[in-house]
């Protein structure tokens, strides 16, 4: 099973990279861009067929390593394959 993990900064945590990208988009005249938040995307191939078990296993991975929960949130999507 493939687990897609999205790690994003929590609301309220300033994202200097996002701000710099937003500035660049505005400089390129993409005035429609209102805010940018930079995150990470991970693909993890996981052994297992039970989506509930895989999800809880990947959530443990996220809490213990993939995300720093002081500053980041995570979201998991499972894809059968």
């Amino acid at each position, binding site marked *: 099973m493939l687990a897609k993990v999205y790690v994003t900064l929590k609301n309220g945590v*300033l994202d*200097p*990279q996002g701000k710099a990208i937003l500035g660049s988009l505005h400089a390129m005249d993409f005035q429609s861009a209102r805010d940018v938040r930079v995150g990470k995307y991970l693909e993890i191939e996981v052994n297992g067929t039970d989506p509930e078990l895989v999800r809880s296993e990947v959530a443990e991975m996220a809490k213990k390593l993939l995300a720093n929960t*002081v500053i980041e949130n995570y979201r998991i999507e499972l894809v059968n394959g």
Partner: protein
Amino acid sequence: MKAGVIVFPGSNCDHDCYHALKHVLGVETVFIWHKEGSLGDVDAVVVPGGFSYGDYLRCGAIAKNSPVMRDVIRFAGEGRPVVGICNGFQVLTESGLLPGALMRNRHLKFLCKSVQLRVENAATCFTARYQQGQVIDIPIAHHDGNYYADAATLDTMEENQQVAFRYVDNPNGSMSDIAGVLNKRKNVLGMMPHPERVVESLLGGTDGLPLFTALKEHVVGA
């Protein structure tokens, strides 16, 4: 006294810390490879600066799972002194020994220069050789030194006098100008600036020396 300097793949200030302890202070010092399961019989631990595991994922995120870190956590839990400098500070926040997290610098630049710090708590085993409120010159060299903690954590830290050092002129966007923090028990210190780089006038300054002297005196008695 015996001091231990942890070495991760990518540590690059380990020899500077070793030099400060061994040659400047005359303390027996050993390197401890991160794969070691035990710290051995050391009396104090330094987690040095550098780029452990190439800063992959997040600074300090992979290093916190090194075998030696379990023993560092045990050692710290016994109230014994641990100091993390720069990347070492990041490892200590990632491992949960210190509150907060270190994020990319506000202006996204790698900063390498001497900065002024104010000593905010001079009543610890690391800072006893400074005066409360003393301003010292210590160099920084980091890309991810922007200290973050949520409002409730910051309040608790202020109440418990857990801020060890503050920047006089905040270079990186750190909340409350925080440059160095302590755990509640005050036996674990993390700081972004590099005291080991200013321990001899030959190196351009000696403002970092009192930190190591205080640590030595704490262990062996003044």
